[in-house]
């Protein structure tokens, strides 16, 4: 009889511990989903939610403060996201907060981050619709990258054609760089300019000694001397 009672007690402990563990597990999962805490609801209207799902976390200043309660398509280009937020955060959450959809790390789930606005506004109320910032769409970035890469391909194609022409000695720059006669001509031209400049200097010296310009040059010399004396 005693053994039977002992067995019943052991079975009772076994069942109780299992049930308590199960209830504790359910409680902790439920607590994470704000099932056992006071909450209030806010909503945000997005154009594109980028794969956000019901149950994803909502963060305010990096702290998990709630979850995504419901996602509903309002029109063809707007989606309303309802968020269930912990009541304790209400005193910090003002009416001018903004919501942005981000992701939890490189491989993580989507999350909504609530960014505080400038101070001084009223506390947020239940069922308020807050302002949203449209998330950067990866597809849009890729489309821009594609256009840029197409332009780049066209530019490099043109550049290649230009370089080819230069290499073949076509055009002014091509001739300048690749044609040896052009270089000789330029060299010769430089020699001619040098010689011309020498001749011009001699002519100017001779003109300075001529009686026509002598008077003018002396007057100019005197004016310059007076100016220097004044200084």
């Amino acid at each position: 009889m005693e053994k039977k009672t002992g067995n019943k007690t052991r079975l009772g402990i076994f069942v109780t511990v299992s049930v308590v563990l199960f209830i504790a597990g359910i409680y902790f999962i439920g607590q994470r989903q704000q099932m056992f805490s006071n909450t209030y609801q806010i909503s945000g209207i997005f154009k594109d939610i980028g794969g956000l799902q019901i149950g994803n976390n909502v963060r305010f200043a990096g702290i998990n403060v709630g979850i995504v309660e419901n996602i509903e398509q309002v029109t063809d280009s707007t989606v309303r996201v309802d968020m269930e937020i912990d009541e304790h955060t209400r005193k910090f959450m003002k009416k001018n907060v903004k919501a942005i959809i981000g992701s939890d790390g490189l491989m993580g789930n989507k999350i909504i981050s609530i960014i505080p606005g400038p101070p001084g506004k009223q506390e947020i109320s239940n069922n308020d619709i807050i302002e949203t910032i449209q998330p950067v769409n990866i597809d849009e970035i890729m489309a821009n990258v594609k256009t840029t890469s197409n332009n780049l391909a066209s530019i490099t194609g043109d550049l290649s054609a230009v370089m080819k022409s230069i290499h073949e000695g076509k055009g002014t720059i091509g001739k300048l760089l690749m044609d040896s006669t052009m270089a000789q001509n330029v060299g010769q031209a430089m020699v001619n300019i040098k010689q011309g400049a020498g001749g011009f200097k001699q002519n100017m010296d001779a003109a300075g000694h001529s009686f026509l310009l002598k008077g003018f040059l002396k007057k100019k010399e005197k004016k310059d001397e007076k100016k220097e004396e004044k200084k």
Partner: protein
Amino acid sequence: MGFFEEVTLLTKFTFRFFRELFKPRYEFNEFVRQSYLIGYKSFPLVAITGLILGLVMTIQSRPTLAEFGAVSWLPAMVSVSIVRELGPTIFALIFAGKVGSGIGAELASMKVTEQIDAMEVSGMNPYKYIVVTRVLATTLMLPLLVILGDAISLYGAYIAVNLKGSVSFHLFFLQVFKSLDFSDVFPAFIKTFFFGFAIGLISCFKGYNSTNGTEGVGVAANTSVVLGSLSVFIIDMIAVQITSMLY
């Protein structure tokens, strides 16, 4: 006995179970005794299996996650794997091996030694006393064993995480519950009732209908384990399909 004949007999056996289940008189004391033998006595085996499962899963997963620099995801990955799939299936298989063979052999030897016939002659309802209590005990005890086994597996995972790293108990279980959802827990929990029911019913059926004397006892024990384990996989496959349709 041909396959289809056996299916017919098993169906009749199942219907009889539900008929007898709700009909008084209820064998409550025998049910408690069977629950103790089936549930409580299986706990050490499930506990050891669970601890090793948690340790091995974590140690084996670590190098793959380390390649991606995602070792911090270990608690989340291991907990989802254990709670959703590995825990219920492995504990049910262990349960089928221990309890299924026991029930099959016990009932077959009762049949061979004509104890079941003797019960009938003495005015007792052997089906109600032997089969209903055992099937009910397996159905209700396996989910409890799975809960305890899962908890011990997660503790094993916590030990394994701390073998090569350092994660506090609080943070580990915070990450575990962060990654788990009701859609992970409830389908896994509900399917264990079906596992337990199938294991108990098949074992009782095989033992209750055993033939060929003492040779039949071995056959009944063996087929109870084989068919019980197979039924676990089949029910699991169906449960996964239903779960993926619902969630």
